[in-house]
Each structure stands twice: as structure tokens, then as C-alpha cells.
């Protein structure tokens, strides 16, 4: 009952005209970004962060969530029509979505994906509503040792689930942690690794790192890739995207299974929507009576993964909002943005800023509804974006990234920093070091250091504090199991070239 009252209050925030506009703009931008291969939601949010500084934090966050949602679906359009996933969470949709398009059922594939996404999103938000309160209560019982142990476990999970090479994942996390210690040490006041630069005394700013690693690096990488632009001539009507009764019957369980598995996977740090869609596809193929149909236009092969990636996008919001732990690159960028607005997601967010927290949850319902409406009515508009030639698009993104980064501090230093991180991001992608763990570690590094140092302060220097308290001992034991499993297991649980970029 209390949850429903809080939600109703949240709707009062979400339905304010400015927030409705924020959701609409976010969903449309997200769809556009999802359609454009090479530009992911994390890059889009990072590049748009400076633009949102004029907005209030609630509207900005509502817009970011809209972008995340929209991008999940936008990628579906190119997956179905061109067999090119707009972003990594739509990779699995290329298999059966494109086959359906070749059979003249592109509209139905896009339609079932839209409805599946809506159902999954709605379920995810309801689950988030009811999980938020209990998880917040648990998190409030956490002291510094528990938080330190939880963060160590999160980083281990990110390394374990991200990419196929765990050593490279670990290097990425450690580089992020290193960057997080740059600046004046808050306890002793000593500058660390600032190299005499006054600008570095307050630490490495988050936005230039995110813009460089995700935005500009993607421009450098996409420039040399084969372009799908200008290849779409398909036309759609509203009737053409509505699934028939038989289509619904065939895909109903795929939507249910995709929703449930996606939500659970989305909550795990490092797994994200890409892993969720892959797991859903595997489940559907195993559950099918005639798995041979998969890859040849099976509607369940579209309905399952598409429901799953949207449920995962909502699932990722659970640890972000309740524990302050982002599980993916996009949620890490969102966390960085919130911190710049002076908000710290975590258990206290629901206590100190209930209007904000529940406003966000209510606006997710609004964005979800907008998404399905926009999807059904405006697919041709999004498809036409692919007619923007790559030689125009990539330089435009570069120019926006530069001026956006400049506007952070009104100084070129941040732009040079972003360029430096773009070079690092390019090399990391080129040599298969996942950049997402670096950003996660940069955002959470200070919290980990603070929690570890406070714990040792409490125990007067004894590290036994981490294993003598039951919750932190359990979390440390889980981390140990994870590391041992990593050493003994040849293949990671999930592999994908672009994993955890969502």
C-alpha cells in the first residue's frame, strides 16, 4: 500500500509537462541512437550530459532513462531490416528478425518486438517498485566493511561476465581504480598523481573520460567499418506492424521467459542487456519443439530476446537506484551524471529524495508507453535516419562531443582529456580490453577506497574486520568462489564481442 502511495506521488512528478517532454525527447533520441550503428546509449548519454546541466536532475534522469529504453528498441529496427544491430543488445534479433524481413514479415517482427518490449518493461518496473523498498532496507544495514566487500564482489562480477578475456577485464577495472585516486586525498589532503596540473586536483572528471572512451573512440572505430547507411527502402503501415492472433500465440511464452530471465540478468553487474538477450535466445531455442526453425524466421527468436533486453534495462536500474551500484556502462554514465547533479543513488536516495526516486520509477512507466506508441507510429521516420551518410554523421558526432565537453568547465583542458581517453578507448577496443569496467571503476573507485579505509579505521588496522562480520564475510567468500571459478573455467558464461556496452 505504501509503495502504491509513493508511486502515485511519483506520477505527480512524472506527469509534469517538463518531465513528459524529457521522457519524449529521451525516447526519440534513444531510438535514433539505437538505429545508428556504432553509437551506443552510453556514448549518447555521455555526450548529452553537458546539455542537461541547464535542466533539473529529475528531468535529466528521466531523459537518460528514455534514451536507454529507446536505444534498446532502436537497435531492433536495423537488426530486422539490415541484419546490422544498431547496438549490441540487438545482436540476437538479427538471426530471426532479418529472416522474417526476407519473408516479407519485417513489420510483424518490429511489431512483436515493440509489444514484447512494452510488456517486459512494464513487468520490470513493477518488480523494481516492490524490490526497491526491501533492498533499500537491507542496504541501510550495510557498514563500511560490507560496502567495501560488495564493491569488490561487483568488480569481480564485472570482470567475470564482461568480455571473453578476464585478465583484460581486470586491467580495465584496475586502470579505472587508478584514475579514481587521482586528485587530492580527502583524508590527508595530499595530492596524488596530479603531475602539477591544478585541473587534476579535484580528480579526473568523469564526462571527458566517458565521452572519450565511448563517444569519440566509437567515431574512430566506426570510420573504418562498412556502412549500412543509405540501404533501406522499406515502407511500413500501422496495420503491417500489428502481429496476428497466431503470432501472439507463438510468442506469448517467449515474451514471459524473456521478461523474467532478462530482469534477473539485468540486475547482475557486468551482465547487462546484451547477455540477457543471448540467454533468452538460447532458452527459446532449447524450449522449442522444432529448434530447426530458429535462424529461419522464428517469431520467438525475436520476441524472447527483445523482451529480455528491455527487462534487463529496467533490471539494471535496481542496483543503481537502491545500492548506488551501476551494472553496465550506460548506468555508470547515469550514475556519474547524477553525482554531478549532487545526487548520490543508493539506499539514502529513497529516504532523502523520495520525490526524485519515485518520480523516476513512475516516469519509466510513461517512457515505456511512449516507446510503444512512438515505435508503432514512427518506424519509417527512424528508418529514414539511416539515409544520413556516414561521412556527415561521424564528424557531426565528433563536433558535438567537443563542444559538449568544453561546456562542462568552459575550458579546453577537458576536451584534450577526452581526446586522450578517445585514443585509449580506441586502443582498448582494438586490442579487446573492455572499456566499460574502466568507467564503472572510475565512478565507484572513491567509494571503495573510502569504505576500505573507514573499515580499517574501525578495526584499528586489522583486515580481519572483512571476514568477521557475517555479510561482508559472505560477500568476500562469494568473490573468492568467483575468482577460483574464473581460473578453472575455460569459457566465460556469456561471450559477445560488444558485451556490457549497453
Amino acid at each position, binding site marked *: 500500500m505504501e509503495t502504491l502511495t509513493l508511486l502515485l506521488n511519483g506520477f505527480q512528478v512524472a506527469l509534469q509537462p517538463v518531465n513528459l517532454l524529457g521522457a519524449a525527447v529521451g525516447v526519440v533520441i534513444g531510438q535514433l541512437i539505437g538505429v545508428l550503428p556504432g553509437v551506443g546509449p552510453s556514448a549518447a548519454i555521455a555526450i548529452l550530459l553537458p546539455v542537461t546541466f541547464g535542466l533539473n536532475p529529475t528531468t535529466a534522469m528521466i531523459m537518460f532513462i528514455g534514451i536507454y529504453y529507446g536505444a534498446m528498441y532502436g537497435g531492433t529496427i536495423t537488426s530486422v531490416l539490415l541484419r546490422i544491430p544498431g547496438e549490441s543488445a540487438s545482436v540476437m534479433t538479427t538471426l530471426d528478425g532479418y529472416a522474417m524481413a526476407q519473408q516479407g514479415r519485417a513489420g510483424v517482427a518490429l511489431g512483436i518486438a515493440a509489444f514484447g518490449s512494452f510488456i517486459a518493461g512494464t513487468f520490470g518496473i513493477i518488480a523494481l517498485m516492490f524490490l526497491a523498498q526491501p533492498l533499500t532496507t537491507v542496504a541501510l544495514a550495510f557498514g563500511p566493511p560490507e560496502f567495501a566487500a560488495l564493491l569488490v564482489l561487483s568488480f569481480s562480477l564485472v570482470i567475470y561476465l564482461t568480455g571473453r578475456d578476464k585478465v583484460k577485464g581486470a*586491467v580495465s577495472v584496475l586502470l579505472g581504480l587508478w584514475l579514481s585516486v587521482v586528485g587530492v586525498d580527502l*583524508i590527508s589532503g595530499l595530492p596524488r598523481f596530479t603531475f602539477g596540473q591544478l585541473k587534476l586536483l579535484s580528480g579526473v572528471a568523469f564526462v571527458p573520460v566517458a565521452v572519450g572512451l565511448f563517444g569519440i573512440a566509437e567515431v574512430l572505430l566506426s*570510420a*573504418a567499418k562498412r556502412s549500412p547507411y543509405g540501404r533501406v527502402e522499406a515502407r511500413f503501415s500501422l496495420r503491417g506492424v500489428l502481429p496476428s492472433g497466431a503470432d501472439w500465440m507463438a510468442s506469448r511464452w517467449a515474451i514471459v521467459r524473456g521478461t523474467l530471465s532478462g530482469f534477473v540478468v539485468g540486475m547482475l553487474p557486468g551482465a547487462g542487456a546484451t547477455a540477457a538477450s543471448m540467454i533468452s535466445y538460447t532458452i527459446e531455442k532449447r524450449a522449442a519443439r522444432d529448434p530447426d526453425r530458429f535462424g529461419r524466421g522464428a517469431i520467438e527468436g525475436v520476441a524472447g530476446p527483445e523482451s529480455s533486453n528491455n527487462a534487463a534495462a529496467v533490471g539494471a536500474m535496481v542496483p543503481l537506484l537502491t545500492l548506488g551500484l551501476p551494472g553496465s556502462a550506460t548506468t555508470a554514465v547515469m550514475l556519474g551524471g547524477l553525482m554531478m547533479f549532487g545526487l548520490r543513488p543508493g539506499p539514502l536516495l529513497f529516504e532523502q529524495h523520495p520525490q526524485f526516486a519515485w518520480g523516476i520509477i513512475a516516469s519509466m512507466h510513461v517512457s515505456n508507453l511512449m516507446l510503444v506508441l512512438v515505435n508503432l507510429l514512427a518506424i519509417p521516420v527512424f528508418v529514414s535516419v539511416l539515409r544520413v551518410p556516414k561521412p556527415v554523421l561521424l*564528424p557531426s558526432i565528433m*563536433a558535438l562531443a567537443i563542444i559538449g565537453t568544453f561546456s562542462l568547465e568552459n575550458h579546453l583542458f577537458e576536451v584534450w582529456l577526452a581526446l586522450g581517453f578517445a585514443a585509449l578507448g580506441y586502443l582498448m577496443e*582494438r586490442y579487446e580490453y573492455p572499456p566499460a569496467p574502466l568507467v564503472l571503476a572510475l565512478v565507484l573507485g572513491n567509494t571503495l577506497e573510502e569504505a576500505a579505509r573507514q573499515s580499517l579505521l574501525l578495526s*584499528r588496522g586489522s583486515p580481519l574486520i572483512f571476514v568477521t562480520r557475517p555479510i561482508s564475510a559472505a560477500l568476500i567468500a562469494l568473490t573468492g568462489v568467483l575468482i577460483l571459478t574464473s581460473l578453472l573455467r575455460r569459457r566465460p558464461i556469456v561471450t559477445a564481442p560488444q558485451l556490457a556496452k549497453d
Partner: protein
Amino acid sequence: MRRADRLTGLLLLAFAAYTIVAGVRMSYWQGRIPGPGFAPIWIGGGLALAALFLLLRRAPGPAALQLLEPAREEEPRTLVARELLLAAEIALVTIAALLLVPRVGMMAGVVVLLLVLIRLLGGTWRSAVGTALVLPAAFYLLFVRWLQVPVPKGPWGL
């Protein structure tokens, strides 16, 4: 890729050594409280360990280290070289445009960046000139007029 891993391992090892030395100088303990060197020493230790994994795997050693080596396909060298060259060209154009910004202003710098990059990526002169006129105008309205960002101005007051 194996060479790249080895080179990265060596660089990381040097970086880890530097981090540990800097951490020791900052001091690990301050009385009974962890000092400013606490985190750098742990991070440096972790980086050194990761660097050793990168350097030692596939070499004779503990089986666990070899299990961490993933299977991988090598790319043709010409393709890699072409991609690297294009990325380097884009980076150089961007650096040149940024160096121009304090002298000619942000908007003129963006115009130059767009013109050169669009042509470099194979765009037509028409699309280059059109974009270089429309986009900076939109940025001017958004960032300078709406968000009041004090961008560097050139001799033309823009």
C-alpha cells in the same frame, strides 16, 4: 595480438612499479589509519599481477595461467594498418582544429573540423559545406545563446 599483449604487459608492469613506488612515498599507514598511499599500493599490486598474467600465459607455467588465454582470430595486417591510419588521420585533424580554437574561436574551429573530416571520410563538397554551415549555427543557438557557454571567440566575434 600476442606481441601486443606482451608489450602491454611490459608497459603495465612499469606503470604498476611507478604506482607502487609513488604509493610507498605517500605512506601506506598514517599512525593506525590507512594513509594516502593505501589505495595506490593495492592498485599497483593488482596491475603488476595482471601484467604478469599477460606476459606469462601461453608460456610454460601453471596450467591455470594458460586457461586464461582466449581463442582468437588474427586479422589481416593490411586491414589493421588501414584502420589505424584512418583513425590517426581523424585524430590529427581533430587535434589541428582544437589548436586553432584559441586563435579563430570555437565556432570557426568546428567549421574547419567538419569541412576537413567530412571530405576525409569521402563526403561531397556539398554535404561538407552544408553541414559546416548548419551544425555550428545550431550549436551556437544551443550552447552560446541557450546554455550561455562562454566559448572562445575569434576575430569575427563568433
